[in-house]
């Protein structure tokens, strides 16, 4: 009987060790963050199971609160990472819509500035003079447009 018990115990502990090592390998190597999250979930499950095995082997019940808390809170990290990844996937899906909106905004904005250069050419001249006076980098960037406006006028 004792030999059978020892054999079962050795098999169980080797299997748990192998599981933890496999999960650790996947956490380190795993190509995506989801693989790492799944592997760390398996590692946590293995910890819960080993806490239970420890209670069986040493005849105590001290680890039951640990098992309860781990089982209740293991979900938070997984949900956080999964939500992060799906939000990331959604924003990487979005660029067609955003690019379309940007091109339309740029086209309408360009038309607006084209119409404004005729009317507000004096403002543009003022801006160009201020740019020459101040010499700030932003106003330097705005200066060629203003010169174009004066040329058109």
């Amino acid at each position: 009987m004792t030999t059978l018990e020892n054999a079962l115990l050795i098999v169980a502990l080797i299997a748990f060790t192998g599981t933890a090592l496999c999960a650790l390998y996947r956490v380190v190597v795993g190509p995506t963050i989801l693989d790492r999250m799944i592997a760390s979930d398996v590692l946590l499950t293995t910890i819960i199971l080993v806490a239970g095995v420890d209670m069986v082997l040493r005849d105590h019940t001290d680890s039951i609160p640990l098992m309860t808390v781990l089982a209740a809170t293991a979900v938070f990290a997984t949900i956080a990472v999964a939500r992060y990844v799906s939000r990331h996937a959604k924003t990487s899906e979005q660029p067609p819509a955003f690019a379309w909106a940007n091109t339309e905004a740029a086209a309408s904005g360009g038309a607006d500035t084209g119409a404004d250069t005729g009317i507000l050419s004096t403002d543009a001249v003022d801006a160009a003079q201020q740019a020459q006076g101040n010499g700030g980098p932003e106003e330097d960037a705005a200066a060629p447009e203003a010169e174009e406006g004066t040329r058109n006028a």
Partner: protein
Amino acid sequence: MLDTIMDITALVCVALAALLSLAAGIGLLRFPDALSRLHAATKPQIFGLLLIIAAIALDQRSFSTLIALVPVFVFQALTAPISAHMVGRAAYRAGDLSEEFLLVDELGPAVERASSDNRRDSGFAG
């Protein structure tokens, strides 16, 4: 005699849970993509924990210990499907699956519809 049988049964439960857990670890190591690994990983979370709880109950043989062990299983049974669902959803939407192992893709049209609805809504809003 009965005590010996219960001890042996508890150790058999521990060994079965350990082998189930080892199967999950090997699946985690060998399977090709995140969804397959998720399939392997979620097996010992419920049944392995159930076996370990049975082993503790068989070893302690006290009703109060069994009552204290019930919340462990309830929490795990409530939260493990949630986390598996979230990870699977994120893995599908991130394109983190290998198409050649996919026989039927019933989620694809729904995701297409949802994302096109989103795009149209954001177009109207903008």
